[in-house]
């Protein structure tokens, strides 16, 4: 583990989480959420949890983002909050 990386990634993660929840465009929110997942995947790789990072990269940043985008496309894209 390298604690400098850790801090930087954690700060970006908190930012990404807040942005994902603030953006009114749901497609944008979903993409920021994809970034969040990718950051957390980096964090886990840095902490030595390579299997978890691999899974998160495939599932969190990959499949979850895709199915969320699929849902946003087949429902409403705008959100009021």
């Amino acid at each position, binding site marked *: 583990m390298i604690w400098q990386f850790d801090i930087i990634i954690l700060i970006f993660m908190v930012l990404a989480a807040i942005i994902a929840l603030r953006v009114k465009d749901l497609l944008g929110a979903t993409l920021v959420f994809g970034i969040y997942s990718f950051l957390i995947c980096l964090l886990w790789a840095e902490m030595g949890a*390579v*299997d978890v990072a*691999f899974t998160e990269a495939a599932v969190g940043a*990959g*499949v979850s983002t895709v*199915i969320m985008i*699929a*849902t946003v*496309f*087949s429902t409403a894209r705008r959100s009021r909050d």
Partner: protein
Amino acid sequence: MKLFGFIAVIIVGALLLAATGDFPAWGDAGSPASQGQVSSFYIEQTINETKVPNMVTAVLADFRGYDTMFETVVIFIAGIGIIAVLRTFGDQASKAPDGPEADNDSGDLIVRTTCHMVVPLIQLFALYVIAHGHHSPGGGFQGGVMLGASYILFALACGLPAAKRRMGERRAIIIAAAGIIIYAGWGVACLLLGGNFLDYTSLDPILPGDEQMARSHSMLVVEIGVAFTVTAIMFAIYSNLSTRGRLEKGL
């Protein structure tokens, strides 16, 4: 609602932070969780007991294999649950476009060509991840997601009907169920040969190598089972969610 939510969140947060003071420092190798007997056993004895260098795979597929079986069941439930909730069965929905040229019915030429080149590579790498999970990060779950993602990519590039001909709904459900049948059936085979459920050592007589190698081989078998289920369900989830359960044309 906002105020209530804020208060609830603050209370929970304060509760959680109150306990962090009590935790061992982050990265402390002497903390109970890291120092404990269970963790030491996994780190030191995995190689002796199972001949698998990747401890995570060994713990996942053998020591806590019962958990992993249910993890696969969770994925299976998500898949059939989504079909049960969203899918609309109708005559017009099941009508598949005919003819091989329907492959080329949608999408850009460059995208399609690239996709046709990339998908086999992804699938090959996914198979490598499944098979090599004993020695490197990866395993049935990660490989399965990647296999499923290759189908999703194909559906994105060439349209869902084309992908459906390769992985139809019925076929996806059968593959998914077959995955768990492989996993749980392997456990039942152990049971029939006189061990406990999922006790791979009892399969020693029918597998090459000694008892430890029987564990190692069995882990590969169950990982393949997991990969089957995950591949099929990931694609089923995508195809249902992207068409609102009608399985006509994708995104």
